[in-house]
């Protein structure tokens, strides 16, 4: 009889544990798996940003693709004879010159701390970082840069993207972001401090330098995607939307 009681007690204990485990699992019911809205955030096939100029855009995309493979890439490959640390430094220097753009646009978006950080970065990197060659502000004080431009400023105040645009040489853009390059160019010290030809030369070497440091991102997209144009279009729009939102 005693054994019987012990068995019963043990059985009950086991049952309780089991039900407790099952109940714990039931307490947080898995939300229904709505793949469009839930896991992947909305149906992008109805993306608000349209592409009414797709035919023209594809033409410009083709042009940029040829420019990349026949002009920029070979030059960038040749430029790789320069040791990588020097190219990274050059990239830092050219990027340091864009600090005013980031500072002003942070300010316009009322991100005061971020604006202060950009001014601090400009001062520290221009002096301690030897004209911006080293990103001393990041290394020493972890002052990270954050991309802000006039397109993001407009987005911050609710201006929509308009439509998708592929610009010759500059690549993926939208009406809003494309137009925004003009006010940004007024803040860019490269454009008002040197002659126009020199400024273009500097911008050109910036592009070549960046491609030389890149690990064939564009090539991999062209190789691996069914339609690189569509892939880049969506990547650009997603990235911009996220940058405006933060």
């Amino acid at each position, binding site marked *: 009889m005693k054994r019987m009681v012990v068995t019963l007690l043990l059985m009950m204990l086991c049952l309780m544990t089991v039900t407790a485990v099952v109940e714990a699992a039931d307490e947080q019911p898995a939300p229904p798996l709505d793949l469009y809205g839930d896991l992947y955030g909305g149906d*992008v096939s109805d993306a608000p940003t349209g592409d009414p100029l797709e035919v023209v855009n594809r033409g410009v995309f083709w042009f940029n693709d040829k420019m990349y493979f026949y002009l920029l890439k070979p030059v960038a490959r040749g430029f790789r004879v320069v040791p990588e640390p020097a190219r990274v430094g050059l990239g830092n220097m050219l990027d340091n010159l864009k600090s005013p753009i980031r500072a002003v646009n942070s300010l316009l978006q009322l991100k005061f701390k971020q604006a202060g950080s950009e001014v601090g970065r400009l001062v520290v990197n221009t002096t301690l970082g030897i004209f911006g060659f080293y990103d001393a502000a990041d290394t020493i004080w972890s002052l990270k840069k954050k991309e802000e431009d006039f397109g993001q400023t407009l987005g911050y105040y609710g201006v929509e993207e308009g439509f998708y645009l592929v610009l010759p040489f500059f690549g993926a853009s939208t009406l809003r972001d494309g137009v925004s390059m003009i006010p940004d160019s007024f803040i860019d010290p490269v454009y008002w401090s040197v002659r126009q030809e020199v400024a273009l030369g500097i911008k050109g070497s910036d592009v070549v330098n960046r491609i030389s440091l890149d690990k064939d991102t564009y090539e991999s997209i062209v190789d*691996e995607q*069914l339609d690189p144009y569509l892939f880049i279009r969506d990547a650009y729009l997603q990235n911009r939307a996220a940058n405006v939102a933060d």
Partner: protein
Amino acid sequence: MKTFLYLIVFTLLCAGYVTAETAPISPRIEVQTTVDAILDQLRTLPADSPQRREVISGLIREQFDFQLMSQGALGRSWASANDLQRQKFIDLFTGLLEETYLGRIQAYTNEKISYGEEEIRQNRAVVDTVIHTASADIPISYKLLLQNNDWQVYDVVIEKVSLIRNYRSSYASILRSKGMDGLLEEMKEKLDSLHQRAEVEQKDAA
């Protein structure tokens, strides 16, 4: 004595049931283990080694839920596709994603990766990682879903761009112009050419 035996068997059964319900491993550790294992294979096994691709492919398939990702990449069209088309799509999409992921991670084999915080909300988790290259930091986030007590990756977000959303957007346009069979045909051609590329790379390395 007989009762005693029953008792032991019953207790063991109970114990088995309870231990099967132990907490899953943290998603951060799961991601880190997989990525580190892949990088380890890439660094140690020679590029012409035939098992290399298989081993890495196995590691990826264990951690990524390709069925879920396929559903996400097709979006609304998943519902209208028949079973055969779905299976074909899953197979091809798995192959394509694998090639893409492998191709990219190979380019960054020798860079430092840091694993950030994990954020768990009910049965979802996001694990942030950063690849530190000489010239830039590339943020990559893995999104995971808890299924059958196991965290599985269902999306990868690179520089704020969701890979699956990106695919869905591209595929939706192709579906509109060419239909499901047209899309499957294009995917097959692409996968064949990528496999050829991999073979050439393997031969070059040998």
